[in-house]
Structures are given as C-alpha cells and as structure tokens.
C-alpha cells in the first residue's frame, strides 16, 4: 500500500520571481532559506508522487466553468504559461493518472464531487515553491486545484475534510509508493483590491498558532471569522487547511515566516511531522 511520507505548505508570491531584484537582502535571505529548507525536506521524504494543492490564477478556468475543486488526471501537465515564468525549468510535468483516478474514486465514495481534468497547465502557484525549492527533476505530480480566487469558495471545514479524505486515498492506494502533499498559497495578502500590498502579520501569526495548536474547531472558527475581513489572497490558506487535514491536524512546524512587502505577501513555509500522529 502507498504511504504518506510528508505534508508541506508554502507561499507562492509571483514577485519572488518577477520582482526578486527589488526584494531587500534580508528578505531575500529569509525567503531563500525557507524555500531551500522546504525543498530539502520534500527531497528527504523521497516521494514517488507529489500531490500538490494550489489555486488556478485564471489559467485553466474562467467564470463560464469554474470548479470548486479539480483533480488533474493527466499523464502530463503543461508547465507555467506566464511569460515571466519563462526561465522555469518545468516545461512539461509528468502526472500520475492511476493515483489521481484513485483519489477521485475515493472522493466520490466519500460524497465529494470533484471536477476532473486530463490536461492542466500548472501556473506559478504550483511551480514557484518547487522551482525555488530546488526540486529538479520533479517527481510525478497529481495537481489538485482549489478555487481560492473567485467567491464563493469551498468552506474551511470542507477543505479540512478534503485533506482527511486525501490521506485516506493515499493509504488505500494499492501500489507500494511514497506520496507527499504540498499545499501552496497564502498567507495574508491582497491583490487588485483597495488593500493591495497590505500584509496582516498579526493575523498570520495567529493563524500559525492555530495550526500549531491543532485544535480543529478553533482553527475553523478563527478562519471563518477572519478570512472575510482581510485581503483576498488569504483565501488560499484553505489549501494549508487541506494539508492540515491530511496530516490528521497534528505536527505542524513552521519552517519560516517573512513579512515581505516587496512581494505583497506574508510568506509562510511549513511542514507537518507525521510522526506526531497519536
């Protein structure tokens, strides 16, 4: 049977790539340290497949057909299409259709109804943490897109449940493979709104404390209350919540946090110690 060997989370601010020269030396050092550590931990987990949860930044979907959650079933995915991601080494990215199929089957069995795609383009949200984390070559990836961009969003509680279901799907996959999960996005930021550029570090710190404490109800209540009051980019924390659910809500460890106004994002990086499971 497959084994879940690592659960991770990372921010994916585009300006880490296209505005890097304008980032202060101290913040460059902080982001580089965190991304390198994240990449090192993913590599150390030796995953045969990586399930990656990220939003779609208007690359695959539009408002004429906008799934809440979509699983990438393809044998191959396209690398990022953004012109400023042209130096990214991932032009095509191998998928893992059999695990993706099993995830969808498990989801349906558990009363989730995800959308499916047999050909996705993986934008900067998927690729920046992997690229800057030094993952080259990549393991095959099963991408899962959460709608974190256009309200109404999946509920925080549902994202937690999705994570738990993903963990079950991995555990019940019949092949003897190692699987890791990486969720990307967040923490606080605001894009294209009057609050654009504002980072709410107290919110980010409190959010991190809730992940560390592991109390599901407090985390869900906190996010339900606060997410609607801060920048739209924080909606992506839902992906972290799914990772938290996959890790059975235990073992959160902050790798690094950088309040980085040059990239408009409170950047967080984390992993879950799966040995902390009761």
């Amino acid at each position, binding site marked *: 049977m497959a084994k879940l060997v690592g659960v991770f989370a990372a921010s994916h601010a585009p300006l880490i790539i296209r505005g890097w020269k304008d980032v202060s030396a101290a913040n460059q050092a902080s982001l580089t340290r965190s991304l390198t550590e994240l990449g090192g931990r993913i590599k150390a987990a030796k995953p045969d497949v990586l399930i990656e949860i990220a939003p779609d*930044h*208007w690359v695959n979907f539009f408002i*004429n057909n906008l799934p809440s959650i979509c699983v990438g079933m393809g044998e191959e995915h396209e690398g990022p299409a953004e*012109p400023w991601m042209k130096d990214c080494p991932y032009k095509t990215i191998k998928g893992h259709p059999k695990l993706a199929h099993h995830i969808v089957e498990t989801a349906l069995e558990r009363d989730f109804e995800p959308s499916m795609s047999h050909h996705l383009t993986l934008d900067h949200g998927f690729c920046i943490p992997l690229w800057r984390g030094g993952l080259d070559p990549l393991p095959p990836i099963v991408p899962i897109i959460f709608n974190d961009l256009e309200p109404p969003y999946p509920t925080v509680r549902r994202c937690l449940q999705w994570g738990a279901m993903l963990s079950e799907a991995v555990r019940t996959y019949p092949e003897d493979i190692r699987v890791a999960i990486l969720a990307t996005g967040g923490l606080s930021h605001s*894009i*294209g709104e009057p609050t*654009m550029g504002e980072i709410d570090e107290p919110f980010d710190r409190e959010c991190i404390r809730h992940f560390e404490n592991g109390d599901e109800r407090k985390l869900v209540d906190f996010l339900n209350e606060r997410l609607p009051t801060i920048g739209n980019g924080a909606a992506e924390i839902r992906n972290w919540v799914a990772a938290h659910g996959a890790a059975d809500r235990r073992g959160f460890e902050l790798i690094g946090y950088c309040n980085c106004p040059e990239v408009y994002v409170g950047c967080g990086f984390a992993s879950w110690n799966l040995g902390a499971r009761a």
Partner: protein
Amino acid sequence: MRDYWLSKLFFDLQSSPALGEEYRTGRKSILDRYPLKPEVRKAVERDDVVFLASRVNPYLLRFYFVVCGMPEAEFLKKVRNAGAESAARSSHG
C-alpha cells in the same frame, strides 16, 4: 456582481501575449469583438479602475492593467483609492 464580457476581455488578454501586444498597439479593433455595454466600454477606454473594479475579479483587474502596461505605482495608487472613490460615487447616487 461580475460583468461576463468585461471579465472575458480581461481573461483573454492575460491568456494570450500576442493578443495583449495587439491590444497595446490599438484597443478599438479588439474591443469591437466583445459585446460590452456602452458604459463598460467607456470605462475601459478611460482606464476607470473604480468602475472596472466593481465588475471583475480583482486578480483579473490586476492582470489586465499589467497587460496594458500601466506602471505598478500608478495601478497601486488607483486601486487603493478605489474603495474611497467607490463609496463617494455611491453616496452621490
């Protein structure tokens, strides 16, 4: 509220570098392809960030003005003023 055809225009422009380049060269021929309401088209033509912000997803708004080549500082100033301006416009009916 989302304006579908305005959103579609912004989506198409950020999806295709060639279309974006054509748009920067001359907007009219591309705008003619979308059934925009007259007041929406006028807002596009005068870069009325406040008006447009209330009708499209904020990420698409940002991507659109990147495609248009609006300097970052100018976009930030306009979008940050959008909240106050929007409130002022609605208070004047």
